[in-house]
């Protein structure tokens, strides 16, 4: 994201320098302003959905929903905690209902729990990002209302194609994510084996590796989590 952001800004501001130098700062301020407007709406939306979710959680209905989705979530997010799976379940069901803004706070919590605060995202975090960003939405209500606003004779005519598209994109994303995760874990197994043989062969190497104990323990724990 940071690279895209930088390219966007450099290209746009340098273009505006020639076309309309006064417009650059103005446009950026307009953007910042609309961020504030959006944030105000979002605080209310998040507040409502987080309150709603707290009731769901405390009455045990959240557990029920996550139990219903458990087979799917187990397959997609192997080795994650029950707590994380609950938030994933809520995130996915909110996305399915087309409530993107309700899904966001659950997604943030789910990523926090899945990611264990490691800098490099693990396979489960990647899976959640891929699923959320390929959109599971079953009813694109924004588009439908926009079509109605433009006096469409068939506001839902595109739904079949849209469903096919969104199901395909999510399936392809999930499949690719699983494939890459498998390839990645194979590579790291090879790396571990190399480390082990180094240990046996020469003490100097072992010292080298032991100099960064955090790395090897991290590897071990991540391996252990995968095996679970």
């Amino acid at each position: 994201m940071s690279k895209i952001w930088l390219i966007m800004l450099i290209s746009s501001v340098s273009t505006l320098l020639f076309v309309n130098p006064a417009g650059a700062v103005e446009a950026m301020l307009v953007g910042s302003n609309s961020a504030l407007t959006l944030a105000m709406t979002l605080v209310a939306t998040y507040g409502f959905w987080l309150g709603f979710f707290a009731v769901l959680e405390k009455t045990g209905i959240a557990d029920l929903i996550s139990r219903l989705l458990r087979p799917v979530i187990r397959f997609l997010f192997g080795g994650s905690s029950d707590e994380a799976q609950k938030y994933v379940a809520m995130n996915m069901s909110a996305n399915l209902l087309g409530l993107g803004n309700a899904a966001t706070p659950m997604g943030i919590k789910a990523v926090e729990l899945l990611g264990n605060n490691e800098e490099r995202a693990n396979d489960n975090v990647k899976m959640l990002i891929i699923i959320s960003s390929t959109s599971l939405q079953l009813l694109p209500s924004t588009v439908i209302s926009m079509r109605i606003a433009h006096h469409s004779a068939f506001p839902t005519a595109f739904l079949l194609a849209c469903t096919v598209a969104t199901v395909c994109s999510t399936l392809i994303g999930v499949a690719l994510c699983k494939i890459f995760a498998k390839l990645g874990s194979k590579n790291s197994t090879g790396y571990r084996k190399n480390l082990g043989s180094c240990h046996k062969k020469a003490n100097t190497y072992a010292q080298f590796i032991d100099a960064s104990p955090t790395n090897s323990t991290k590897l071990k724990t991540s391996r252990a989590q995968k095996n679970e």
Partner: protein
Amino acid sequence: MSKYVIPIIFLTVLVTAFFRKKDPYSYFVEGSRSALSLMLEVFPYLLTIMMAVEVFKVSGVSGFVANLTAPIFRLMGLPAELSELMLLRPLSGAGSLAVLDDIFATYGADTYIGNCASVIYGSSETIFYVSTIYLSKCKTKKLGYALPVAVFSTVIGCIIGCAVLRIC
């Protein structure tokens, strides 16, 4: 359909809470309390993205890049008129919604282009925005293959969706 789903869930939850002798009022207050702190974490990212997208659109660079990439989209079976929508969609929901509005106004919602635009907008997500916001509260930042995979599968989905539109 979805008109009924959420109010019904809401009612069920409240009635369940009542019968289990729980206090949904205080739960709701506690839950919504975290919204403000959450927004404090999310807001800087929101602002950083949105100001860049705005200047990207206003400067005309997005239109220019859209024109440049239009042949690629045509090659993939997507109408060239929709390239700006395809470019902005992963970045900003509000920005791409404005483009969708524009497309409907120019070509009409019931034309092939209008339907294609609906499929593209409806079947995709704001990939870069979602991933940034989801990661805003934790230390995890390196996503590896996740974003390329998301973009690739979204594009394939759009191509399939537009192909379905042509057949039906």
